């Protein structure tokens, strides 16, 4: 039953990475959307019928774009990762910022 233990070992790592990237990045994206809506005001936010809705806030728009930039960065990392793996390289986070190294 060694395979089973090995599989569980792999599985929880995949789950962890999946939660951080697969649920975390979409959450950041959602924050961006919310922030943009706050920035746009008016029809973008839920408000009582008949009123014009809240005013826009410039800070919201800015925050929204920051969030989207973060998500784009995450996707760029993902693509780099796919390409690097294809060429026998790996992404290393030992310097905190990612670098491409040879796979060992």
């Amino acid at each position, binding site marked *: 039953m*060694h*395979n*089973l233990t*090995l*599989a569980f070992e*792999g*599985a929880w*790592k*995949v*789950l962890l*990475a*999946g*939660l*951080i*990237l*697969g*649920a975390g*990045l*979409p*959450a950041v*994206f*959602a*924050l*961006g*959307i*919310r922030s*943009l*809506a706050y920035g*746009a005001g008016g*029809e*973008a*936010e*839920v408000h009582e019928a008949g009123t014009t809705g809240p005013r826009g806030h410039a800070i919201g728009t800015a925050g929204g774009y920051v969030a989207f930039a973060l*998500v784009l960065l995450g*996707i760029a990392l*993902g*693509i780099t*990762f*796919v*390409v690097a*793996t*294809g*060429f*026998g390289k*790996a992404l290393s986070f030992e310097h905190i910022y990612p670098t491409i190294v040879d796979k060992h």
Partner: protein
Amino acid sequence: MTETTVVLILVVITALGFDFTNGFHDTANAMATSIATGALRPKVAVLLSAVLNLVGAFLSVEVALTVTNAVVKIQNSDGTPKAELLADGGQALLLIVLAGLVGGILWNLLTWLLGLPSSSSHALFGGLIGSAIAGLGWAGVKWNGDGSKLDGVVGKVLLPAVMSPVIAGVVAAVGTWVIYRITLGVAKRFTENGFRWGQIGSASLVSLAHGTNDAQKTMGVITLALIASGEWTDTKNIPLWVKIACALAIALGTYLGGWRIIRTLGKGLVEISSPQGMAAESASAAVILASSHLGFALSTTHVATGSILGSGVGRPGAKVRWAVAGRMVAAWLITLPAAAVVGAVMWWIGDLIGGLGGALVVFAILAALATYMFLRSRREPVDHNNVNDEWDAPAEAPKATAGAAS
């Protein structure tokens, strides 16, 4: 042209055929949600996915020559074929590979006809396992690894198949739930528009990862056949024409679009909205990438289905059609044994007749059954025009699609 050369050509054509079915069977994994929510028009979605699969296939320069080693024993660990299978220009090995591929293709076509997203890698492995049992006996299959790493049918196929949909489902459910919490109070039209972009991005990532993962399986199989028949000797590289042919086959298949499966995944399982679609595709992309990085073999199909199901569970008040999900799980369970039976039967037929004649008959059976299934599919066509029709529409004929059929 010798007999072996003709058999080899048949193997290569069949392998490319499998790659093609792999493409159209799996378009849905990446694009079903984007098509269902209208983020991309159906034709644009399959085109985008095809191009990314093509690019992905070329990015996968990692040698996948030992792909069959996970489940059957027809290769040494360095990728060269087993010496005892090499008599007569490797005909013994070629027949096992040919019969296995035919098993994979036929099962892929049948599940497509029924609109069920089953795993292409399971179909391939199942076919190979069946033909290996027929050709080499039970000992020809690597059932379990040696315990040092995940290996064999149990470690590389069965366990990941059980775990990956659950993992992907949990990730997607959490993602969906969080997204809906965060965007509470934002107007629906505003969120739908915004999330469409996120959806297209995450779906593209899934397509790219699919190209890098799946195309190289076929490349490995073709190169193995070339080595067995003495046409190629380098176990460190794959011939360029093989790479180009495989990339084109998978891209062409993707572009054709398995509309029946797209419909089941996009409309049948869950009524999906843009935020859910994005959560599902992000979960798929993250799980596929993370597991290929950790050497945890899994099927794109199982991950995508688990994700979509999870996005339905995570959204408060969403409707999940568990009956459709149950049919899919049933299809997954029988994919491997069913493809194995076809692979075994094909090997016996090929072996009984023997030599070139046997290979030709097996190929003819494949062509005949494939044509039959294609013609059968024309009776109730599903294409880019009706892929998004309401699942439960009263006007729909009772047998029209997988979810409604018995």
